[in-house]
């Protein structure tokens, strides 16, 4: 599953679609008409200088930030709205929560629940949101923790773990909800350099297994290696998008070239 199904069929319906997403903070347009299609099984890396709106765009996808314009859809269903007599009507919080349950997110600062053990962190949401059985979830969670290499830490508190370990727990926690798409928001930016590898290794394995994901990252080597497509954003806009080799290897735009010259 290392190649995306996108390259095989000519025009599949994208799993995740963002159309003209706009987000403003106090008249400052942070995300400026960004559109993006992500196909099933595809890995898209979003790169760009800090302040380019990458993270905000990612947070708009699962409605952690409410977009000021544009629409996002997952598997043909609008996120955050329903269509009612020719109007888009905002969803009730419960319905929005159900939609979010299908979109996994991994944060820059892990955001593990400090009052719960590692295992409890992983099973909390499926237990309370999907209302599944605890015994079943614990077995699944142990498997997920083993997959991220942390089976022995199941009963540790998050505070007893290194940053890299915490981030791997956060990944397991998001996967426990069996999301259709995963959003990674600079998953290694808050880590010590020697811990970056273990987290990227896990993400790489997941994407290789066919996980649909959008990864905001500053790790150009990772993007080149793992991404099916790379999106370069600057000043809230998508400047360039294309195959990883093309965007990172021979970028068309001057701004992309300037950025890459600085970071590579």
């Amino acid at each position: 599953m290392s190649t995306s199904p996108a390259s095989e069929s000519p025009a599949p319906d994208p799993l995740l679609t963002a159309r003209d997403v706009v987000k403003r903070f106090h008249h400052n347009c942070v995300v400026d008409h960004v559109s993006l299609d992500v196909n099933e099984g595809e890995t898209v890396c979003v790169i760009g200088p800090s302040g380019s709106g990458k993270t905000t765009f990612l947070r708009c996808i699962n409605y952690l930030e409410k977009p000021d314009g544009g629409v996002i859809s997952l598997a043909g269903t609008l996120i955050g709205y329903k269509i009612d007599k020719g109007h888009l009507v905002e969803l009730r919080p419960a319905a929005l929560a159900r939609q979010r349950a299908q979109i996994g997110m991994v944060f820059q600062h892990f955001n593990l629940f400090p009052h719960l053990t590692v295992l409890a962190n992983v099973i909390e949401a499926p237990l309370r949101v999907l209302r599944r059985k605890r015994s079943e979830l614990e077995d699944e969670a142990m498997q997920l923790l083993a997959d991220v290499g942390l089976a022995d830490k199941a009963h540790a508190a998050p505070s007893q773990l290194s940053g890299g370990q915490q981030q791997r727990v956060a990944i397991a926690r998001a996967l426990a909800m069996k999301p259709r798409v995963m959003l990674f928001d600079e998953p290694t930016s808050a880590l010590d350099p020697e811990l970056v590898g273990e987290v990227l290794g896990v993400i790489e394995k997941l994407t290789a297994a066919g996980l649909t994901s959008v990864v905001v990252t500053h790790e150009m080597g990772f993007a080149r290696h793992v991404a099916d497509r790379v999106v370069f954003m600057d000043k809230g806009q998508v400047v360039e998008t294309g195959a990883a080799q093309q965007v990172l290897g021979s970028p068309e735009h001057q701004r992309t070239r300037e950025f890459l010259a600085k970071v590579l």
Partner: protein
Amino acid sequence: MIRDLVTRSEQAATDRPGEEAWTLPIRPRRRIGYWLVALVTCLCIALLIASLATNKAMQWGVVGTYLFNSQILHGATITCELTVFSMILAELIAVPIALFRLSGNAFLRVVGYLYVWMFRSIPLLVLLIVWFNIGLFYPRIGFGIPYGPVFVSASTKQLVTALDAAVAALGLNEAAYSSEILRTSIRAVAAGQRDAAKALGMRSTVMFRRIILPQAVKIAIPPLGNDTIGMVKSTALVAFIAVPDLLYSSQTIYESNYEVVPLLIVASIWYIVIVTVLTIIQSLLERWMDRSMRSAARPNVAKLAAGSLHSREAFGAWRTVPGLGESETDT
């Protein structure tokens, strides 16, 4: 500038200790000032204690005879009851008020704000007297339809005792302060926690109960403990409406025997005892919260498989279509 630095570092090089420095044993520095301060402090405290112990006005003998007087002990229990019931009432009101103030609904926010504004503005003593005289405002309390027929009613004077009035006044006043503590504690929980809970699909009720509240309570315990201790002493105000609490009991005794100072000392000793017990409870609670933070929600350990293989199926597990509420067996 740079030249200065260079010459200085050259000088430093000449001051380097000889080889023998590496082998010398370390001797702690003499701390003369520390022990001098200790001596003076102890001397001052000893003088103060001596002056109090030998002071005729204190009449320690009288203090001794009244320390376990039944009226005093009854007063102390009334003070404890007032503190407990007022704090319970205060927290019962404070939780909704705090949630109102954090609500997305502007009307609820205004209600919460008005409550805090009102009850922080009115002096507790005024509130106490108003509640004691609540019969003047509402002579009869009944159950019925507003502006319609009344089914049951009773005289307010009979229904609301002085003790009730005291609990109401203390509780309503404290609720305003407690709600501020709770509000700020809830806000102090890191924003990332909310993001994570929302991203996992939790509804706000689940998020609040399972993620925010446990962390907020931990933050709120020290200031709430502080307020509880403050409450112990606020209860002394009920002497104004003749509730026979600790202070009022000692007052009734000294009004008949004129031993004012010894009886105030007796009351103070019991206030100190109550506050000391509360302080211990608070620190135990804080320690318990710290520990439960570390081992909370410990799941059923025995049942767990000791970790699984790195199988492709394991990584493929998420790929099964996520049916909400649907349970499925893996591997």
